[in-house]
């Protein structure tokens, strides 16, 4: 049996899955002030009457780190950057303990200007004096040569308990994003560690010594142990949980559009042949661009609780939201009220919904039910327009080879999956508006928790080799090795796959993980100087994609069977 648990902004959902069915499901209101009690209440209910030995794993997706950032409840972090020539690093200041120091490394990873140890020592003294116990160190091109970051970390370790080095978090070239990512890692480190140790301890005291996994923003899981040093990966795992929950129902052949209709917003994601698409570089956290691997999602300010109004004779929905629907005691008419008017929803104040939408229909000079239909149709059109824009953006992403430009893959959805409260009612309307086969995801109330439960590990390894420098480097793995002149792309790929395999196992993947290794980047350039080839410049990136763990891959049929879809409009 598997536990999946998703702490959302308003509700915390949990499911217990086993024998191809949902054995138990819980929904409690989220208490942001005390996430632990809330998580524990859920776990307690799910594990009631369950043999401790029967549970094989528990996967948690929480808003813990997300909330901490939103509320600014973070520890003070010292940030030290070494940039060298380029954009003034003062532009990337984050936090109030930000220091720029000497030193420079070039694009090939060669040291141009050494660090000045004295400068770092002085900063260490300041950190000691100000009681700054956590720091992030970042140097430009550290992913080509981590020397300066390692040196800074070594000196600062006399003042700080934890020093995060940028190169260990991502091998992607992007200095400003590396700064933000390292800062986030250091900032959420303590709360993440404290929380999950408490969860593990509590389960243990109840006799459940089960492996705990944490959901990441890219829709993959990592073991609790692996998460301790990568807590930034858990920020914004919420959308990933829902998207993963839709995955069992997606076709493996064509492309799928996933629409998660919430109260305030609708989140949009895309599967290409059954694999969720990722952000090219990383997600955004509180308006700051990062290198945190994240699912590609787009959000439109339109949901079941969006305000419906008439402006200059035109119907308008969103982007504002004023509490819940009238049917649930809110103050403004909403698309949810339209469902009540049409008799598709019952457990609320139907009369309030009719009264509120009645005012809208008066102003439109249309019948009440017709108005309700107009509201839902417009909502669907707006969501679809946002989805089309997102697909255009994905297909418009620049590529750098002739081959890809002429023959590159273009996303073209052949099916739509809808989740969230009003999913079954909206699905036929979306199908009508888009002309694309649309269905509501079964168990749409707890898709997120199911998604968390079923998610498998994702890992990535980037290897950079320069035969002129005689070096192969996988910065995130702290791996470097001398290589011979004849080291080539094939050897690099082999090496990267070995490193990835080891990484996957360490992060809690099953041993079958090599079955879905994917090569994301595989390029080799001859380096020519004075008309002679002097070496090869090789860049290789391999990953395991987000997806479902083996035992859950064929669950979709049984979920369909045990779930009765409501009658559609």
């Amino acid at each position, binding site marked *: 049996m598997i536990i999946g648990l998703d702490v959302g902004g308003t509700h915390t959902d949990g499911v217990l899955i086993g024998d191809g069915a949902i054995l138990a499901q819980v929904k409690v209101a989220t208490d942001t002030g005390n996430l632990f009690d809330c998580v524990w209440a859920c776990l307690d209910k799910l594990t009631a009457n369950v043999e401790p030995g029967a549970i094989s794993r528990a996967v948690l997706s929480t808003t813990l780190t997300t909330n901490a950032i939103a509320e600014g409840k973070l520890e003070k972090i010292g940030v030290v950057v070494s940039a*060298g020539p*380029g954009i003034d690093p003062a532009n990337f200041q984050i936090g109030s303990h930000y220091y720029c120091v000497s030193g420079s490394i070039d694009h090939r990873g060669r040291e141009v200007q050494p660090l000045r140890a004295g400068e770092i020592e002085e900063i260490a003294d300041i950190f000691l004096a100000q009681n700054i116990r956590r720091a992030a160190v970042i140097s430009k091109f550290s992913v080509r040569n981590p020397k300066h970051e390692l040196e800074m970390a070594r000196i600062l370790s006399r003042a700080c308990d934890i020093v995060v080095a940028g190169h260990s978090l991502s091998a992607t070239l*992007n200095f400003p994003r590396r700064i933000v990512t390292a800062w986030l890692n250091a900032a959420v480190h303590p709360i993440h560690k404290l929380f999950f140790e408490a969860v593990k301890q509590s389960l243990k005291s109840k006799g459940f010594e089960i492996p705990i996994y944490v959901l990441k923003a890219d829709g993959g899981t990592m073991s609790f142990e692996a998460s301790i040093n990568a807590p930034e990966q858990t920020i914004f795992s919420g959308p990933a949980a829902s998207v993963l929950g839709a995955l069992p129902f997606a076709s493996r052949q064509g492309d799928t559009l996933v629409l998660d209709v919430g109260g305030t917003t609708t989140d949009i994601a895309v599967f290409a042949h059954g694999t969720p698409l990722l952000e090219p570089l990383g997600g955004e956290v509180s308006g700051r661009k990062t290198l945190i691997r994240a699912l590609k999602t787009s959000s439109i300010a339109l949901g079941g609780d969006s305000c419906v109004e008439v402006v200059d004779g035109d119907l308008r929905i969103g982007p504002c939201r004023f509490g819940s629907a009238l049917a649930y005691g809110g103050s403004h008419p909403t698309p949810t009220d339209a469902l009540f008017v049409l008799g598709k929803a019952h457990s609320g104040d139907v009369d309030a919904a009719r009264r509120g939408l009645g005012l809208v229909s008066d102003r439109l000079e249309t019948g009440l039910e017709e108005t309700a239909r107009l509201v839902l149709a417009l909502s669907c059109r707006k969501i679809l327009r946002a989805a089309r824009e997102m697909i255009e953006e994905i297909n418009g992403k*620049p590529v750098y080879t002739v081959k890809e430009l002429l023959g590159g893959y273009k996303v073209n959805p052949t099916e739509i999956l809808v989740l969230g409260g009003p999913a079954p009612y909206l699905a036929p309307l979306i199908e009508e508006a888009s002309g694309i086969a649309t269905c509501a995801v079964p168990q749409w109330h707890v898709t997120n928790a199911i998604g968390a439960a079923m998610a498998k590990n994702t890992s990535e390894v980037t290897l950079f080799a320069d035969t002129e420098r005689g070096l192969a480097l996988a910065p995130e793995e702290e791996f470097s090795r001398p290589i011979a002149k004849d080291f080539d792309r094939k050897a690099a790929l082999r090496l990267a796959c070995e490193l990835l395999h080891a990484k996957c196992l360490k992060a809690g993947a099953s041993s079958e993980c090599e079955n879905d290794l994917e090569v994301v980047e595989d390029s080799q*350039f*001859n380096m020519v100087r004075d008309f002679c080839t002097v070496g090869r410049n090789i860049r290789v990136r391999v990953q395991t994609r987000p997806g479902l763990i083996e035992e859950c891959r064929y669950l979709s049929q049984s979920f369909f069977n045990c779930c009765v879809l409501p009658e559609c409009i």
Partner: protein
Amino acid sequence: MLSSRNKIGLVFFPAFDWAIDATHPEREERLLYTQDQVFEEGLLDIEGIVEFKPDIATVRDIQRVHFCVPDELGVTTQSHLISAGGAKKIGSEVCERNIARGFALVRPPGHHAMRVVHGARGFCNVNIEAIMIEYLRHAYGVDRVAIVDTDCHHGDGTQDIYWHDPDTLFISVHQDGRTLYPGTGFTSEYGGPNAAGTTINLPLPPRTSEEGFLYVLENAILPILDEFKPELIINSAGQDNHYSDPITDMNFSAHGYAELTSRLKPHIAVLEGGYSIESALPYMNVGIILALAGLDYSQIGEPDYNPEQLRQGPEITRRIEKVVEESLSIWKQGPQIRQNNRHQGKFFSRERHIFYDTDRIIETQRESVRACPDCGGLLVIDSRADRGSRILAVHIPRKACAKCREAGYQTFDSTGMEGFDRIFIQDRTTDEYFFRK
């Protein structure tokens, strides 16, 4: 967070799978380190800097500019179409006012490609700036355009294409042709009889440094642009004036290029040459992008940049001042020369040999232009390549008068095929292109 003062667009197309040949300067590796530097600096994340996917130029786009022998696809690869399409994309976005300025960081380059194309010369097959400009004129009704070519090599292809066009100002600043390929670009080359003075050449002595380039900019280029009043300024932004470039002999720098870009304020910059792929291009391209965006570039520099060491000698300064003086005087005389020529109503002819170094072809050309008081003048080119093809090409300019147009069709219709493999006509008044064979 950084945000750009001007909304700018970038097309970055390094063609990582295309080379002239494995060790040629124009090879896969050329923009690899530029990519690394641009990515690592996070330039594409800056608010107001947008990256576009290149368009793919069409055969029709090429036919507005060139006479390709035997035809367009015979002398280009997909990479050329993408490179020209990259420039076209940036131009369109500027004309649509989606961006204020843009930079097509594309390869292969194009500024050595002339109106008639038998093959590749100076690493260029088709002229990507001219293809863009003629597309913008066709699609957006742009009229007056200025091209400032800052590649170290004389932009002889662009000069050839606009030699007879009084509405296109072509200014080339480059290393003196006596010391570098293609061996042209002297102040005495100032345009055809109907367009005298709208070609300006500024040949600079070897080892010209930042000071010299900026002097030329302030004292010749900017004042001339001011008077010409173009709707669009295009910079053929070759980067081989750099002190570390392996195939040239100048002392320009990344900081200098950024400064030049910031003062020139081109609407569209298009990458041309530049083969110091590790020591110069990464820093120069970052500098140019920041300068276009209106952001601070003062801390951009090569690891070994030392302005004191690069300073030019007084003799170089004197020679540059003389070049500037000469070109200003030509610019001033231009209108009078045009006036004198145009009323003669006859055909002016010139005969030339054109060397295609990349493809090793020698072309012999006889070019005749009708001196015309009312338009750019009918242009007829009889061209023979030593590999055997001979063609006759008739070009009717964009704003041709009825007389020139009529004469053009008459030449096309009445010339017999004897001796010619193909006879072309390019009618820019109707945007049509035909050939007989």
